[in-house]
């Protein structure tokens, strides 16, 4: 097995390209790979196509920083802190293209990508205007049963970045909290960066093979980033910092305020 432990700077530089389809792990303000998000902003990546289910500050920051040209999503929101300000602003100004999904289609699109199939049947969508406007969801009749469903296109991310709990230096990953789409994303993407709270010896992996959620061969790079999900939560390790997210929500209401947040929390902290 190849050693894959590297720095965040190297991982983002070598594995995230302008124009990539990028899937980010976590949900809402929980276990988003925020250290990686900040590094992507610092490196000024462009024209990313973001893929995620129910996302918040991670997507909004990347959009506001000008890294994004397209978003495949079921929801982008800061929840009780309001609409995602950059997502809203960039969408309203026509600066980002939206590929609107529902959870069931984006999840199954990622799952189909992980399965290596170009599309997958799912239920629902009929009667929704989401279907009418979608280029990645189409009506479909099952040839065996005659049932009317839709087919969802596999989005096939180029890169997935997830934040996990533990991994060895080869990229064998233990994911000990809520799974969300993190494991599917890691199996769906061509390149995978895993940022982790702890690097553990390979022997610990072998002692508990049932806990290896993502074996090494799916993983391109492992980066040790303690508190790397901050200000989002990381299961038993730390909770979200709602003060920081609230500050973000308030500052990001204006482009100037957003730049202030970036200056304070993204460009200073490196």
């Amino acid at each position, binding site marked *: 097995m190849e050693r894959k432990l590297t720095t965040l700077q190297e991982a983002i530089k070598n594995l995230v390209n302008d124009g990539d389809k990028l899937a980010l792990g976590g*949900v*809402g*303000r*929980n276990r988003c790979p925020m250290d990686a998000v900040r590094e992507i902003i610092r490196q000024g990546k462009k024209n990313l196509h973001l893929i995620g*289910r*129910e996302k918040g500050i991670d997507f909004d920051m990347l959009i506001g920083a000008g890294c994004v040209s397209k978003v495949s*999503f*079921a*929801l*982008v*929101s800061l*929840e*009780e802190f309001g*609409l*995602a300000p950059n*997502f*809203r602003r960039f*969408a*309203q100004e*026509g600066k980002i293209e*939206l590929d*609107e*999904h*529902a*959870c*069931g*289609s984006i*999840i*199954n699109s990622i*799952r189909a990508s992980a399965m290596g199939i170009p599309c997958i049947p*799912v*239920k*629902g*969508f*009929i*009667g*929704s*205007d*989401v*279907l009418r*406007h979608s280029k990645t969801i189409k009506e479909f009749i099952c040839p065996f049963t005659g049932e*009317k469903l839709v087919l969802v296109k596999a989005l096939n991310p180029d890169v997935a970045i997830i934040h996990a709990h533990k991994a060895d230096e080869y990229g064998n990953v233990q994911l000990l*909290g*809520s*799974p*969300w*789409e993190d*494991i*599917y994303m890691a199996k769906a993407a061509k390149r995978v960066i895993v940022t982790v709270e702890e690097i553990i010896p390979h022997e610990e992996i072998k002692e508990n093979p049932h806990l290896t959620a993502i074996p090494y061969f799916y993983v391109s790079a492992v980066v040790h980033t303690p508190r790397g999900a901050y200000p989002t*939560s*990381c*299961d*038993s390790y730390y*909770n*979200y910092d*709602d003060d920081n997210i609230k500050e973000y929500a308030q500052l990001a209401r204006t482009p100037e305020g957003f730049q202030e947040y970036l200056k304070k929390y993204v460009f200073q902290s490196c």
Partner: protein
Amino acid sequence: MEYKVSELMISLMAREIKDGDKVLQGLYSPMPMLACLLAKNFHAPNMTYFNTADVVDPNPTEVPFSTAGPKLQENCIAYLPLAEVFDLAQKGELSLIFLGAAQVDMYGNTNLSVIGDYHNPKVRLPGGAASAYLCGFMETVIWIPKHNPKVFVEKVPFITGQGYINGWDTRERLGIGRGGPRKVITNLCVMDFEPKTKRMRLVSVHPGVTVEDVVNNTGFELIIPEEVPTTAPPTPEEIEFIRNIDPNNVREIEFK
């Protein structure tokens, strides 16, 4: 016993859950989260409680602000990715989901996508999360913390979540007869859908609310039955449970 409208709504939502039901609670869903925990600890001990923390039947000592937050993992039985809860839904085994909306129309269609033109929106909303998918085949309960004419509109400009579309048998004609919105629970009242036309209908008004209050705050003509009872309040035990499990007033965040 005195109670807040959030507590009343949680109690009403909990009563939509029958024992043995399988119920999914989504993201940014503090009241559904508390309703599920209330139901499971009171009248529906055999319900299965799924949520955005991707755990089965948690029983947290204190509810988190994020309804996907780590605290929600406490005392759970298993982890299960949402993908597999949706698989259950596709098999017809999920009983109910609570859905929020920025706008709701007279046929229970919901909008969480845009105000204005879809490609050139006046307001780009967050997106409907599970709506367009689950509303196509599942029974839903819609909860609205702020009942007003901006929310309750004659016709939503964009159907994110399918209600009864154009009413009557539209769903059947589209081949999606199964499911549809069952109830709408707001800070003013409870509503359901008249079986034939599928138009929204008043069921009960909350204590202190008049039928006129509801009518004035609804942007379309609601079906008003001859008798409109007052909504039954939560029991003291329910209120106590909610306050005990929610010392930080997570239940109030949608009312700010």
